[in-house]
């Protein structure tokens, strides 16, 4: 059985994908989970392929997750950490693209501080480009693993009520989740301080709650975003304590929920700020499952993209699902 849901050359975000393509990635991730449980955690799928992890922003967990995914598919990986002066940031991107092209790298996983950077790179090189987070724009593999985790625990995505809590304005995780979940038929809401909410967000097809209590009353799932310290320093919220008091996901609040909630967090957590420890370590938290699923989802994405071509993605988006 083959379903042509080809992704094309790159995974830049979830906004351009169809529900069928997203479903194919999630379904493909299932068998890849099993590989991580074997004694020999390797399959020869990407043997001989070179993958560069090009990280312009510091990141431990995402990079390691990708690295494991790549190595478990037998690819050769190279890590380039281009975290440095922002002055060089702009020039470096174009020149980096050209250098990678000249070295004939098969795939590039890029994380960059500017929205649009992944698309910028993808348009300039022939290698497959996977967006590991560009500015505030998208972080597709994170949203995919979030959706996989929700699907694992609740059996479906359609009709599931997911509320994303926190700094939506600056969050690429939020945006990718909004695109992915709405396409898969989930009901999506956002909740956070107004200063951290993007304008016109409801026009993306989501509800907006101003109070965390309303969100908890409504949701089946909470995806809790990290509040970065810089936001407080930039004045968006007066203090972390105030944020926790009015928007923190605490055990007391969850106890008042009408139904058991699934708790997700992309990590790393600010314990005591957006989420309390007893919630993060509690029975409804699936945060560790997210980490496991992260590797499987990334393996699935690498598998599906390798050797892909953009024309097939276009055809796949409009073709009816074959059985």
């Amino acid at each position, binding site marked *: 059985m083959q379903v042509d849901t080809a992704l094309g050359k790159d995974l830049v975000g979830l906004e351009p994908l169809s529900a069928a393509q997203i479903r194919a990635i999630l379904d493909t991730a299932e068998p890849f989970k099993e590989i991580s449980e074997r004694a020999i955690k390797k399959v020869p799928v990407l043997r001989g392929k070179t993958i560069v992890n090009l990280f312009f922003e510091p990141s431990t967990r995402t990079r390691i997750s990708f690295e494991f995914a790549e190595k478990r598919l037998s690819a050769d990986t190279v890590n380039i950490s281009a975290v440095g002066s922002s002055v060089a940031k702009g020039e470096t*991107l*174009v020149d980096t693209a050209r250098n990678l092209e000249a070295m004939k790298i098969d795939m590039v996983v890029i994380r960059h*501080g500017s*929205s649009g950077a992944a698309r910028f790179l993808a348009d300039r090189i022939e290698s497959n480009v996977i967006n590991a987070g560009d500015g*505030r724009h998208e972080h597709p593999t994170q949203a995919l693993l979030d959706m996989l985790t929700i699907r694992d625990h609740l059996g479906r995505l359609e009709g599931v009520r997911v509320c994303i809590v926190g700094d939506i304005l600056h969050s690429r995780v939020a945006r990718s989740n909004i695109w992915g979940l709405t396409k898969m038929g989930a009901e999506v809401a956002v909740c956070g301080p107004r200063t951290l909410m*993007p*304008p016109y967000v409801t026009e993306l097809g989501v509800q907006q709650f101003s109070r965390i209590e309303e969100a908890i009353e409504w949701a089946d799932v909470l995806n809790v975003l990290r509040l970065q310290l810089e936001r407080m320093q930039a004045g968006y919220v007066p203090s972390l304590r105030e944020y926790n008091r009015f928007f923190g996901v605490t055990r007391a609040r969850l106890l008042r929920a009408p139904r058991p909630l699934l708790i997700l967090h992309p990590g790393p957590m600010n314990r005591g700020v957006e989420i309390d420890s007893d919630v993060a370590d509690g029975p409804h938290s699936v945060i560790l499952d997210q980490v496991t699923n992260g590797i499987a989802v990334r393996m699935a994405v690498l598998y599906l993209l390798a050797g892909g071509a953009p024309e097939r993605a276009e055809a796949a988006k409009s073709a009816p699902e074959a059985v």
Partner: protein
Amino acid sequence: MTPRPLLLRGGRVVDPSQGIDDVLDVLLVDGTVARLGRGLEAPEHAEVRNVSGLVVCPGLIDLHVHLREPGGERKETIESGARAAAAGGFTAVCAMPNTDPPVDDPAAVGFVRAQGMRAGYARVYPVAAVSVGQRGERLAAIGEMVDAGAVAISDDGRPVSDAGLMRLALEYAQTFGIPVANHCEELSLSRGGSMNEGLVSTRLGLQGIPNAAEDVMIARDLLLAELTGGRLHIQHVSTRRGVEMIRAAKERGVPVTAEVTPHHLTLTDEAVDGYRTEAKVNPPLRTAEDVAALREGLADGTLDVLATDHAPHHYDEKEQAFDDAPFGMVGLETALGIALTELVRTGVLTLSQLVDRMSCGPARAFRLPGGTLAVGSPADVTVIDLDAEWIVDPDKFLSKSRNTPFAGWKLVGQAALTIVGGRVVWDREVGPR
């Protein structure tokens, strides 16, 4: 060296300053308009050009260009900019002072003026800085700079953020009879922004610049102009509230003029989709409602002037992630074509109104010579072919830079001849002189 007399025969003369729209001959002698009439005889040694089927109007004047010299010669020089202006049908441009170093003293003003004269294409009128170094702290030597040839003052690039300083500028400039041109942007509302704040910015994950960032300062400046009686010129208006406020202020008799760019009249923030840096401009491209209000404002005269805000940038600089690319697009060589195609052909403006907004209006706003074909006025004339069909090809630009979102657009209408001081500085049959 004075040029030969030049007789333009048989063109349709459109001169709103004299209420003329008629087929007439135009005779230019010794750098001034000598006669308008039917069946004029060519004097001895005169050059005669047959311009029947074409429009003859007072030379177009662009009140807002960035020529990048001194300091940014890689992107544009006064010469290349003046030449590009001539190719676009402009007989004069006003060069903004945000160069490196900025034009904030009479020597710099003199330099810009001399470079323009040496180039010998469109006239280059220097606009001088409001504040020393354009730092917004204290007034620059405005009187001396006007003496050296400055026609207005502006800290463009930036706004004059301090209301107290803006008040001083509006008051002081009156002594020298020049306007204060302000780039209205409340920086604390626009900080970090790279495009219009709206649904598109949310989708793309880019920090937005809300309309309010501009409106807040337009409101402030209109009130200060009212308070001081100083001449205010609001640059590149991009918002509907901005138009409303300017209209109301004019009705109250506030001495304000306002300009709008061709791109703000034709594009919305959707043009940025796909992170296209050619569409990254400040103030940003806004929404359809804003575009509609700007068109109405230009038609009813609330917005007096069409100006390009020609902002050349080298290809390398625009080839970056969106956040990192500089703001701005070139405009000298596309303005007339865009205006004729998107505003006149569509009925937003009559041809006469367009000539007014691109020639008479600018001359009035900055009290520049020109903007009219009245006998005795400078022989600055633009001859327009209304029917010429052409496609915007940045590689053919005379400007050193190519950053425009209009690449590939099919336009109808372009300058056939540009005449400055009675001399042809652009002839599209021949190319640059």
